[in-house]
């Protein structure tokens, strides 16, 4: 097990190098010069050249990349071109904000999606199943930017019970205030994954309850509740866990649209503003952070299998 984990962690390194290299190249090839964007058209050629030198942007591409990589390894992620501040603490804060949103959205998605899927499966073609599946379809097809605006109008404006944007009320820092600010964006963010999880649970469950061992369990007189919970759900959850893991990775990237609609200062929003300003250090740092967490979440998902499914073992 330990060996497997070490192996997996080591295999992250080439993946992350590949990702950052790719992002670096894309940013280099994208039109627009960060220095000119930042200093604006009024800046003198001298000022532009000096800033370019200061940022190391006058160096050949491979030197720039290696310098950046070396810095990252030493914990120095560079300074944002546009925001004039250290990248690492800035992005760490943003990432933490996205993580709050992710945890809340994913919990909501699981808490609703999994039971809805199970109920739909064991009462297939019932009214409840049909209603649930229609809702799933609606949830899955609703664009988040639209849903976000509607929720803002309904809960923020008409009912006036929830804040509509940002992460804290002016001048406040309390946890309750934070949670209130998380409700609308995480509800918006949860709809997609919730729908996917519900559908996945349903189809996986349908498959499982038709298995011989379920019939056997029933035949030996086990109560239906136990059949479903002990033999059904546990087996049906394996593919669902994979999906949840993938969704977690996706949400960690910070859903850019949701963060934009709610002006929520997460990592997705940081990435977008970074891209618009051609702020290489921010974009590369953000991608590195998101990619690492994505790969790590995948690793955790794989390890979770071993716990859920006794048939799976990773080395010794």
């Amino acid at each position, binding site marked *: 097990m330990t060996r497997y984990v070490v192996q997996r962690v080591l295999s992250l390194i080439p993946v992350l190098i590949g990702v950052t290299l790719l992002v670096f190249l894309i940013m280099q090839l994208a039109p627009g010069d960060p220095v000119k964007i930042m200093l604006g058209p*009024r800046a003198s050629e001298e000022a532009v050249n000096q800033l370019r030198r200061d940022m190391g942007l006058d160096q050949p591409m491979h030197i720039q990349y290696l310098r950046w990589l070396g810095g990252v390894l030493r914990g120095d992620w560079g300074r944002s071109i546009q925001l*004039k*501040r250290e990248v690492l603490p800035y992005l760490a804060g943003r990432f933490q904000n996205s993580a709050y949103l992710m945890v809340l959205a994913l919990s909501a998605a699981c808490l609703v999606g999994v039971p809805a899927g199970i109920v739909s499966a064991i009462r297939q073609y019932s009214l409840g199943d049909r209603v649930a599946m229609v809702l799933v379809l609606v949830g899955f097809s609703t664009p988040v930017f639209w849903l976000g605006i509607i929720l*803002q109008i309904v809960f923020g404006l008409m009912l006036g019970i929830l804040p*509509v944007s940002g992460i804290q009320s002016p001048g406040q820092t309390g946890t309750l205030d934070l949670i209130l600010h998380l409700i609308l964006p995480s509800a918006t963010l949860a709809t997609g994954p919730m729908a996917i999880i519900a559908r996945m649970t349903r189809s996986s469950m349908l498959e499982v309850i038709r298995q011989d061992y379920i019939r056997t369990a029933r035949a030996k007189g086990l109560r239906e509740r136990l059949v479903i919970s002990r033999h059904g759900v546990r087996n049906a959850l394996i593919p669902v866990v994979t999906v949840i893991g993938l969704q977690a990775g996706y949400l960690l990237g910070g859903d850019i649209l949701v963060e934009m609609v709610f002006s929520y200062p997460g990592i997705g929003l940081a990435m977008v*503003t970074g891209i618009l300003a051609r702020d290489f250090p921010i974009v590369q740092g953000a991608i590195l952070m998101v990619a690492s967490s994505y790969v790590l979440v995948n690793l955790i998902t794989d390890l979770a299998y071993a716990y859920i499914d006794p048939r799976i073992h990773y080395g010794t």
Partner: protein
Amino acid sequence: MFPKRTFLAWVVALCLALVSASVAVPLAYAQEPKAGGTIIVGLQAEPVTLDAPQVTDYNTIRAAYNLYDGLLRFKDESTEVEPGLAESWEISEDGLEYTLHLRKGVKFHDGTEFNAEAVKFNIERQIDPNHPYHDTGDFAYAEFTWGAVKQVDVVDEYTVKITLEYVLAPFISHLAMHPAFMVSPQAIKTYGRDISINPVGTGPYRFVSWTPGAEIVLERNPDYWGKPAYVDKLIFRPIIEDQARLTELLAGGINFMVNIPPDDLERLRNDPNFKVVEQTGMHTWWVYFNTLKKPFDDVRVRQALNYAVNKQAIVDNILKGTGVLAINPLPPVVWSYTDEVERYDYNPEKAKQLLAEAGYPNGFSCIFWTPESGSGMQQPVLMSTAIQADLKAVGVDCQIKTFEWGSFLEQGVVPPDKNPEWDLMAFSWIGDNGDPDNHLYILLSGDQWPPNGFNCGYYKNEKVDELLRLGRTTLDRAKRTEIYQQAQKLIVADAPWIWIDHETQIVVMDKRIQNFKLHPTGPFRFADVWIEQ
């Protein structure tokens, strides 16, 4: 149907309400200013720095402005200068030496003294590459503001002398611009590059905190050298989406908002809880002709295209009143502006006739570059498409090419030997210091073809060049006004651009916020603002 009596009661109630409303307004204005309260401003993006000399955009200066005082100050609603941290000043006969007498007893927010040394430190930090604190920031405006400065001398503790290399009449306005806002030298030494997020000025507000992505908080400076501000706290919140910002305003999450979507403006104007404050900005939106290329070297063609475009329709239907029609490259808020210039009112018949005279009775085709978005560009693609349609109607067939803003500037604003592909190019300009030189010289003088300046269409008229050079070296305001008015007449007759509009600055706020005035240079001044309880 209402019973008659109820109906009457309603009518009376309505009349009373109307009367009391009309009485309430003057009463509100008659109120004494009161201290207290908080203004929460919804900005359209996160400010990038709070170190004034490093600011390059409106959004940022709006958050930073109230922390500082300039050496001089623009008067309210005008670009005339008045004393700031310098109580008085003298300009030598030859126009090369500016002696500033500084206000005594002014302290920075960190308690250190403001004096002549601080002025010298601030200017040299920006322009001297060997200054020990030059690397504490990126000073995009240093060249523009201080480019003419030869040296800065401390005469005594409260007198400083700035010597210029050459005479530059607009320099006096530069002393009121944000690079001339004074930052505490001690704070720069303490924080280094992080002065950007730990600003220390002398202004009516001082810095409290900056939570990235969430808010910037400033509080009233009780030790301010001038009259202290009324409002206790200023909070700036970045809310990127226009719709979300509007919802926040309506829900009370902010009480002051910028960038109102044109479609929602009308609704807010009619909402009794809010008031709309607007002022024509120091801005112009236009289309360059590449005057080195045929057929745009012919003034008749340029005039014809000016007649062909229905500018008023663009202002009314696309900008929906967020801009005013331009008849001159100079915005009306800039002194010396004159409307006694040739007019190119919409007249497609006249356009066709001029084109025929110039030898293009069947029109021609051309290439029209426009950015997708950009600072001051309003709605470039929609506006360009409308222009394209108008030109098509007189036989001029242009092909629009759109660009991302950065690459647009990189490829469109080039020296003539690079031979740019475009024949027409959309552009805009927001003035920096309210001096006509800042518009006319930089944008239309033959000395200012790229890379020197922004005369991107390579317009050249010897007489205009002479006037514009004279304008920037003449110190007498009356003479300058005359020179610039003459230049405007010549330029407009030459029609080097198709000028479309001057954008209106618009803010919406809670109606209890009193005495707020927009300034043509863009920042929000909150020192004299109070909130009715």
